[in-house]
């Protein structure tokens, strides 16, 4: 979305679970890796996440979720992003997400799903790769 300066990443928790240790861990790790991280806090609606992502003009959105409601909530996030013409944002997620759900989420547009136990170095290098390969002219690429 922009040429210079650090990439901006939104980290948020959608839905009702209040366990934010994982989210905070990622926030800190991304900050240390040189990203500007916008943290939304816990119990956010998909609407709040997407509005924030657009206003903050982020390059990526990372959603943390442990409640099991990922299929419904993530679908809604993707739907809203489409409505905002913001599909070029790199989507990723982390949390207790069963393996059998991952193909569905990937089909929705989530580039990476990080399940418990993923080494931090793997998360960081995967993100760097995804951000580097994001389309240069998002508007045209998305529509």
């Amino acid at each position, binding site marked *: 979305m922009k040429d210079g300066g650090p990439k901006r990443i939104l980290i948020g928790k959608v839905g009702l679970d209040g366990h934010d240790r994982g989210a905070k861990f990622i926030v800190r790790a991304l900050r240390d890796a040189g990203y500007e991280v*916008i943290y939304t*806090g816990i119990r956010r609606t998909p609407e709040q996440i997407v509005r924030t992502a*657009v206003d903050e003009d982020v390059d990526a959105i990372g959603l943390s979720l442990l409640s099991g409601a990922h299929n419904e909530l993530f679908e809604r996030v993707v739907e809203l992003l489409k409505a905002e013409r913001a599909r070029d944002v790199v989507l990723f997620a982390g949390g207790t997400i069963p393996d059998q759900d991952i193909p569905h989420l990937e089909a929705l547009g989530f580039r990476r799903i990080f399940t418990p136990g993923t080494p931090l170095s793997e998360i960081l290098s995967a993100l760097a790769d995804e951000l580097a390969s994001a389309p240069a002219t998002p508007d045209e690429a998305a529509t």
Partner: protein
Amino acid sequence: MDTLVDKIRQHDRRSLAEAMSLVDSDAGEAARLKDLLRGATAGVPWWGFTGPPGVGKSTLIDALLTRLRAACRRVGVLALDPTSPVSDGALLGDRVRMMRHAEDRDVFIRSLATRRCAGGLSDATLHCARLLELGGFDPVLIETVGVGQNEADIASIADFCVVLLGPGYGDYIQLIKAGPLELADVVVVNKCDMPEAQRLLGEVREELRHSARAAAESEGGPAIFGIEAKSGKGVELLLEHLLARDQSARNDEARQRAQRRRVLSEIRRSALRSCAQTMDRALADFSSTSVFEELVRGRSSLSTVASQLGADALAALTSGAGDNSKRTEAARNTRR
């Protein structure tokens, strides 16, 4: 670029958000956009909020947003957080306190990192505030990073400056030291539900009665409020005062004064950045010279060498201004 400006004028959020990224990155056409903005804005008062970390700046802005929205104002907010001096990353967490406004289309909150600027604001802050103005947001609220005793930038661009203090600020000696209290048009003691806050409120009153600022101002110096931002207690009264200040900042003379002050601040930042970049390059070369070795051994006078270096850097800046900007751009490209 004109299309972008038009789209922002027509309240297109995504264009506004992307224009903010453009001025923040300082890339490509940023300079042209900044020039356009300078001429197209300056009609809206900017409210500055500053104070130590954790004092409740974001929470107060959240409380003000609720009330300003009830009065049908479209409000823009810029919230600054520090860039890490180690990684260049940042955690921008101010909006956590303002999330209940996240879905309101008449509120635009943008988090900005300082990008290593000292002074409590980033270089892009002023341009982002102008963008909010262009997008029809009025007023514009600017929250500095949590400040210590030496961050005064907000006073040079805001129309008025609210300084927040809270329990734990320290004793009377801290208040007498040079610092944020001197910048204040309005002093707010937050967390007044805590006993220590009442003592602080008393000390602030006492201190401001004696300060040079109070003596100089005809209306008796900065206004002082005790509030509880979280519960909203005292916020109505404070807002009434801020709206009165906002109103009196709207006449032509006040607008012109604000604009001149902002442009001065803008050019100062821009010129200082060029000087610093040139100086840093000169120093990198200088550290491998014999003159430097002499200095390290204490065999020559530093002040003579320093003024010579300064003069050389300025000469280089004057002769190769265009060249320099190209080199800076190139440096940025390589870093990416």
